[in-house]
């Protein structure tokens, strides 16, 4: 349970981090280390260099615009949980943050680290998919903005190049008429979810978004839903059509998670 030897660098700027990543293709970015730490200790990961990005001031900044909030990549789950950043989703982010792992993990685990790792069971992926957030990526060729559904390609697989850094996530603001529900099913509190359901209904923006997360790959967006009230009845058929039919247990647990998220939104 001891990591193999690695070098450690601690750039002060995004440019400095990118330069280090460009020079060492097998370097790994260290943010809160709540996933990478265990991987290093288990020797699943053996990078030659860790680039610690937690001393880059810009990466924990918040930028609020009339229709969106951009959250820096190294903002911790605990900062969201404690309400130390504005919540563009009117409490949904706070609710989600509160349920991630345990407090001692949330104090160091970061939004950007979770997204870049792209574990299908991670809460933020499903949540931001339902909110149609955009990932901001910096690299040697400048910055690019990638919708979260395009950013994640599969389990632990993203569109990040080795010399790129996820710097922020831009989250659209929900309107005052929005309601939402979030439900995850875990065997043990704080463990990886077996199924995640997210329901966002915002008449102000004219959207009804249902997401089934913690699949084997990307979250499934249930499309063609016009009214949240009528959504629960067709979930099973929709998830079946989306390819969740291979395993009866998996299907039923995902249907349950989405239905509970819908119920949560309706009760709001």
């Amino acid at each position, binding site marked *: *349970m001891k990591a193999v030897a690695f070098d450690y660098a601690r750039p002060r700027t995004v*440019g400095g981090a990118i330069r280090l990543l460009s020079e060492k293709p097998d370097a790994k970015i260290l943010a809160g280390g709540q996933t990478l730490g265990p991987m290093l200790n288990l020797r699943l990961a053996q990078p030659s260099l860790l680039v610690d990005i937690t001393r880059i001031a810009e990466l924990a900044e918040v930028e609020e615009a009339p229709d969106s909030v951009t959250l820096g990549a190294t903002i911790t789950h605990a900062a969201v949980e404690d309400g130390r950043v504005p919540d563009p989703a009117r409490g949904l982010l706070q609710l989600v943050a509160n349920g991630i792992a345990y407090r001692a993990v949330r104090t160091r*685990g970061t939004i950007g680290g979770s997204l870049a790792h792209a574990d299908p069971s991670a809460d933020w992926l499903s949540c931001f998919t339902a909110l149609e957030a955009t990932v901001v990526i910096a690299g040697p060729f*400048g910055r690019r903005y990638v919708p979260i559904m395009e950013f994640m390609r599969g389990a*632990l697989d993203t569109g990040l190049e080795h010399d790129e850094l996820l710097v922020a996530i831009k989250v659209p603001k929900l309107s005052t008429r929005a309601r939402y529900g979030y439900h995850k099913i875990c065997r043990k509190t704080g463990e990886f979810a077996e199924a995640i359901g997210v329901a966002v209904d915002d008449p102000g923006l004219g959207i009804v978004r249902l997401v089934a997360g913690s699949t084997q790959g990307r979250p499934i967006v249930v499309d063609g839903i016009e009214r949240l009230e009528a959504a629960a009845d067709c979930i099973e058929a929709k998830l079946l059509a989306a390819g969740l039919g291979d395993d009866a247990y998996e299907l039923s647990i995902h249907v349950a998670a989405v239905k509970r998220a819908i119920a949560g939104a309706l009760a709001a």
Partner: protein
Amino acid sequence: MTRISLSVNGRPTSADVAPRTHLADFLREQLLLTGTHLGCEHGICGACTVEIDGEIARSCITYAVACDGARVRTIEGFDDDPMMTRLRQAFTQEHALQCGYCTPGMLIAARDLLRRKGGLGRNEIRIEMSGNLCRCTGYTGIINAIGAVMAETGVRQHAPASKSGWRGPAPGPEAGTCDAAELKGPPHAYQDAPAQTRPLSAASTRRPIKVTVGRLETIEGRTSLTQSFVLPYQRDAVWRILSNPVEVAGCMPGMVLDGPPLDGRATGRMEVRLGPIVASFAGEGTYERFDEDHRQVIEGKGSDRRSGSRASGRVEYQLLSTTLDGAGATEVQTRISYVLTGPLAQFSRSGLVRDLVARIGEMFAEAVDARLSGKHGPSARTTHLSAFRLMLRIITARILARFRSFQKKISH
């Protein structure tokens, strides 16, 4: 070794640490503060919980070097803390410990909960404390003790632990007197506006080919499945590529042959570098072709020295003439089976494997298609990227399975 300066239990400390030394080892072995316990050593059990800049954290997955400039507080640093004194009494009264192994972490987490929240019910306290495992007490005494202290303290307003307003992992950019790593060189001029565009890889210019993957079966450790795809070329043309082992290897993401095959045998490796993980399966393979059936059987085995995993597999494919949009085309029907042993072996999630095989199949089919269309074959860079993606998927299964099986073990 890297020089770090930090405060531990209020005392300024400087030390040389190897970057791989985690905070708990640093505290226990260099500072001899053995009150911090190590249970699982990968962030599951909570025994190693300490405070970093006033917020609780797992010291086994936080590296000492990352705490340069931080204020660390261990169980030894709470001796005079009134809340901790009261909690210790309550733990004694309620018989909240037996062997004591989890207790330092349990106390620090409980005190943090009392600092942040009040008025919680038993069930809520259980949920809040679920990141700290105890194998003796069944938790009842622990929950009783925390509940008793919480009843005395009443409902509290959560005050942020840090006044700096830093929202990232502690200690953040304001901390740290010696930043040796930064001395490696000044950051180069970095421009936000795109100065140039990233060159397109060969893979990104290929056209997509749809691959159908059949159901996956595992019998006695051997996993098998089928997949098929259609290429818009005559069978003889496709066979010219797919009957040639060098061409087949060239289209396979991440595969490099040591030299030309001889007498139906070849050696080579599947070399992959993927973000956190580097793996290289070296081994040998045999092939047997049946021209009259347009069929080939490839068998191979190899091992990854680094992870100590071994793999053996068999791929059999046959080409059938078909039509696509009214023109002559070829369907490639493939049957794949493999056995994987060692750390990489925890391939328990069928959905992931199907996804993986479809992905490999797509990359392979697109590479064959590119060859047939006269475009360039896979460049070194392409191979690398493809291999990257491919291996990530293998790793996914392994990591997820491993984490989950460990967590299940630990929570039963």
